């Protein structure tokens, strides 16, 4: 029941011998060791597992591997590294926009997709973009501030 699947993640090509029905999230985490995207619900309800597929923020928990075989996939690890953080990551740090940090990776991915389209989002536009995300720790306002901070930094 396995098949060879080609996957392009963070600019690198991978040939994987796996179940094509397997959720992309599990392959990213377990085969490629990319642990930033998190399992939250597996039901496309919480946003913890978001990644970029051809520039769109999508939940990876319910996306079967076969659906993204030819796509360009970016995870949080592909946006920035600890030594060279993405402006969104720098802004999240500057605002200390996390408590437990379990929601963070998914939020930064969605924020990246938003800022790619709209470099000056209003509070309402940010909230709309984050509608499919849950932060159980109540860090929402800091997250919104971090996205606004990154937007103004990136606009410079």
């Amino acid at each position: 029941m396995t098949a060879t699947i080609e996957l392009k993640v963070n600019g690198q090509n991978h040939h994987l011998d796996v179940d094509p029905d397997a959720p992309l999230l599990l392959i990213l985490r377990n085969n490629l060791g990319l642990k930033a995207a998190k399992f939250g619900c597996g039901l496309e309800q919480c946003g913890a597992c978001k990644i970029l597929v051809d520039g769109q923020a999508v939940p990876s928990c319910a996306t079967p591997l076969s659906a993204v075989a030819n796509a360009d996939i970016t995870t949080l690890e592909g946006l920035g590294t600890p030594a060279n953080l993405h402006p969104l990551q720098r802004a999240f740090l500057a605002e200390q926009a996390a408590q437990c940090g379990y929601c963070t990776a998914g939020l930064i991915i969605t924020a990246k997709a938003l800022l790619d389209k709209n470099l000056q989002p209003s509070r309402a536009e940010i909230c709309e973009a984050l509608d499919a995300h849950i932060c159980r720790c109540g860090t929402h306002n800091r997250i919104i501030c971090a996205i606004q901070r990154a937007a103004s930094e990136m606009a410079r």
Partner: protein
Amino acid sequence: MSIDPLIRFSTDGHVTLMIAHVEIGQGILTAVAQIAADELDINFTRILVERADTERTPTASYTSGSNSIQIIGSAFRQAAADARHLLLAKAAAALQAPVESLRLTDGTITDGEKETTYWALQGDQLFGETELGVGQPKSSEEYTLVGQPIPRLDLPAKIAGTPSFVHDLCLPDMVHGRVIRPPTYASTLESIDENTAASLPGVIAVVRDGSFLGVLAEREEQAEKAAEALRQNARWHVQPLPAYESLYTDLLAKTSQDFLVVDGVPQDGPVPPIETPANAVQTLEATYRKPYHMHAALGPAAAAALWQDEHLNVWSHTQGVYPLRGSLASALDLDDNQVRVQHLEGPGCYGHNGADDVALDAALLARARPGRPVLLKWSRADEHGWEAYGSAMLVKTQASLDEHGQICDWNHDAWSYTHSSRPRPMAGASNLLAARYREKPLPPPTPKPGKGSHGGIHRNADPLYAFARRRVVKHFVPDSPLHTSALRGLGAVGNVFAIESFMDELATAIKADPIEFRLRHLDDPRARAVIEAAAQEANWRSGRRGNGQGRGQGLGFAQYKNAKCYVAVVFDVEVDTASGQIHLTNTAIAGDAGQIINPDGLANQLEGGVLQAASWTLKEQVHYGPDGVTSRDWDTYPVLRFAEIPPVSVKLLDQPGAPSLGSGEATQGPTPAAIANAVFDAVGVRLREMPFTPERVKAALTQPQ
């Protein structure tokens, strides 16, 4: 006594803190590091933190009850002060200079000519037995790190997405587990065709032990598929749950154990009846209800376990590695020294959720394949359906006002189930979930009423206000239909919701401003100060309430456990009378947590707590029916989303030199009351049952109040 269990120096210029309390998103590691670095006079970057581990860090109980900063903050402060004192004495000997002549900067000690360092003097030596308290901790004016908004130590990794959680653990040869739970607590497994799952690709073992059912597979997606096959296949003898609709009538109808609560402490002996005093000119009564709430961590519980050579190694996001070790050992009939529990972080837990239970699940699966580490993650449905909920609660209040508009009699009767079933080692019983399902079951112990000051049900039942007379009664009901335990705030949520709503009702009865009315009954200057600060922060509109024409403002106040952080919260709301929707338009919080260790961390905690409690208040309730809990995902258990979050401002009142007070749970009670009071102000109706759903708002608007 020794410094060594807490603080270790190393030759390379680092100091490692052995912190047995755990990071749960509250920033405790950073706060303790600030305290220690300040006392040691070293740069913050020299501090390393070692996580809780039963083989490395000192014995400690749970990280709970907003106690951490008080307990370990002072332990580390004293140990660091002692270390500094001893090292200065060593330096004096080494440099042959009087201690008074020495200057200490970032671990380098000089007499003006010669110098040495902590690292040269202590290297990685232990201190051995030392006298506790030889060093004098600094006074608050001398702090340079305490009180500063130092960024959290743990956030860079989380924001970069590098592995930070138990869920991210990757051990050599690791396999993946899943568990399959019965429909309801008391259901039993009648039959299961294990072969349907056992023959699936990658499946290593189907583990059945009585009604405990789990599966191990090489890969996670294989474990998922096998678990689904087992779920389809399992036949359960279902013991139905009672109907949700009778939640509060059942709670009142059941036999309760009743205690008069005096100064926050339950008393044995008869409970006096309510007696209205002779000088009462007006008497009001009301009943407030709070349903079961979930912790609902964003990531379902997970644990890893390895069974090898009669030893069990567990990696867990428990709030207490030692209590979990003891509980696992007693549930598995092992000695404590056969079990090691290492802490790794999890998603925010907000109290006792499934973190400990999943550890026993993982241990049972690991025992089926010795030598192979097992990573077990619960599903979303497992997490929603099997965590220990915050208990439902019903509070009846009755109070009388005298001719001067002062409260001359106050009565508070609180009914609830247990708020505390954290696992502890015990004989013949276990609070770890899987234990009750095994072939040789260990049933959960019968819940007992807590007798401590501000324990579960009676937490914050005794108001901080000065009343001429008060009668506060705890009604402990042992047999909850749902599994319950500590959820952020415990009984304070229902009690403060009732007290602070009722204070508003009383103020309204005599057409008084609710803040002015509270202050009339409040002597504690710090309590008064937070209320005034919140009012100022929120631009409080004085005067009587209830005629806001759709817009309203309300306040809630409490000092957590009457001993910890003081919090006042003001909500501004708009109520859409056609839809029944409550919009939170603004929030102001004022908090006094004594001497502030980290203002940014404190503000983050207070705001997060308010928003979580606002979500409970507007949206959350655990639904169940005969076939089990029906709130099994984020659609059936909705929470506040980004667009529904109000802007929040936080005002902190620092108390330099005063003890630091735990703050993690202080906002949970004032928040629901503040929202209820704001809704009353907006549309003139009282909401006394959480959650304040649009249907409830509309129903209240059409009912005579």
